[in-house]
């Protein structure tokens, strides 16, 4: 089903693989690229794969975007990290942000930006 608002094609996917274990996503992406005649697989996003009871069948969802910009714009951050299009930005921890905020409270005005984090002995 095509979703032009989000510039992608979205579908539910069922894979039949009797007598073998679940097929890794990379292989599935390669197959899909061949089916839809794409050059590379960076516009394909797969998720939600579950093996059905008894084995041999897997159900999941897939999205094929029109281009990489559309992927970066519309796709969820955790999926982009999974694909490898974005690296995870580790923010300072919860405690650290709270301490920084409290230190900032003691200062007024533009000096707030000068307050740096970390314990200084």
């Amino acid at each position, binding site marked *: 089903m095509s979703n032009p608002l989000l510039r992608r094609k*979205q579908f*539910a996917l069922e894979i039949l693989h009797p007598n073998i274990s679940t097929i890794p996503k990379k292989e599935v992406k390669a197959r899909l690229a061949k089916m839809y005649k794409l050059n590379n697989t960076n516009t394909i996003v797969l*998720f*939600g794969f*579950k093996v059905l009871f008894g084995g041999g069948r897997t*159900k999941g*969802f897939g999205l094929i975007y029109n281009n990489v910009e559309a992927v970066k714009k519309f796709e969820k951050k955790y999926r982009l990290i999974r694909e490898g299009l974005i690296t995870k930005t580790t923010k300072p921890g919860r405690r650290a942000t709270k301490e920084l905020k409290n230190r900032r409270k003691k200062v007024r005005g533009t000096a707030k930006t000068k307050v740096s984090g970390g314990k200084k002995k």
Partner: protein
Amino acid sequence: MAALEVLESDLPSAVTLLKNLQEQVMAITAQVQSLTQKVQAGAYPTEKGLSFLEVKDQLLLMYLMDLTHLILDKASGGSLQGHDGVLRLVEIRTVLEKLRPLDQKLKYQIDKLVKTAVTGSLSENDPLRFKPHPSNMMSKLSSEDEEEDEVEDGQSEASGKKSVKGVSKKYVPPRLVPVHYDETEAEREKKRLERAKRRALSSSVIRELKEQYSDAPEEIRDARHPHVTRQSQEDQHRINYEESMMVRLSVSKREKGRRKRADVMSSQLHSLTHFSDISALTGGTSHLDEDQNPIKKRKKIPKKGRKKKGFRRRR
């Protein structure tokens, strides 16, 4: 000579006929004149009537006029050969013939209208009374509603709807009235028995008995699944939702437990030997199978800090 005799015998009857004719013509003229006077005075208004009937009236009048014209011509000795009136008559006659089936179709409606006009109101069993009236769906809240009193065993009175100011209809949510809970133990028992009876009636045992003794032909239905349980229906519903929304829903512990129980139940050969309970119909006491509903013994171990998550028990 024979012609003269015929003429002589015919003469008195002809004279009487002519006299009759004269009288009748006079009577008819008088009637027609009174009718025309009435019509000109406007005693028969036809604006709001059926136009079909009006067309018929006009056609019949035209027919009569042409006919009288022809009679006049013939009586004054002219011949009707190639007379224009004949053609007109034929045309009007064909149109009237074509209108006759329409008349048949409208007969019911016209009869009803006439009856309404005569009696002034519709009869009680008139199905027209039950036709939908969309005007009844418009809220008549502009007029004040009187308060409804619902006093039942000392329960608080119901609140009437407040009258809405003017035309702007602000949505007033309905104030649901708490109904007094009056169910005694006996009534609860009765309800339970009712439900058990209904369930027993639709159990497989009774159904097979019915099939055996009824005269109706045996129906073999291509059912989706003979052992469709509530759990499988819920699973199907979940699967449909997941596939249409393209999300994966998380399964809580309780759901997992239920699913496991349903699987265990269906994988055993339980349904082969255990039939549903029809004691509600036979009158005996209901015997619940031990392995169906095992009585769980709950261990009472007071845990530290249990009070916090007081109401979120995990069974």
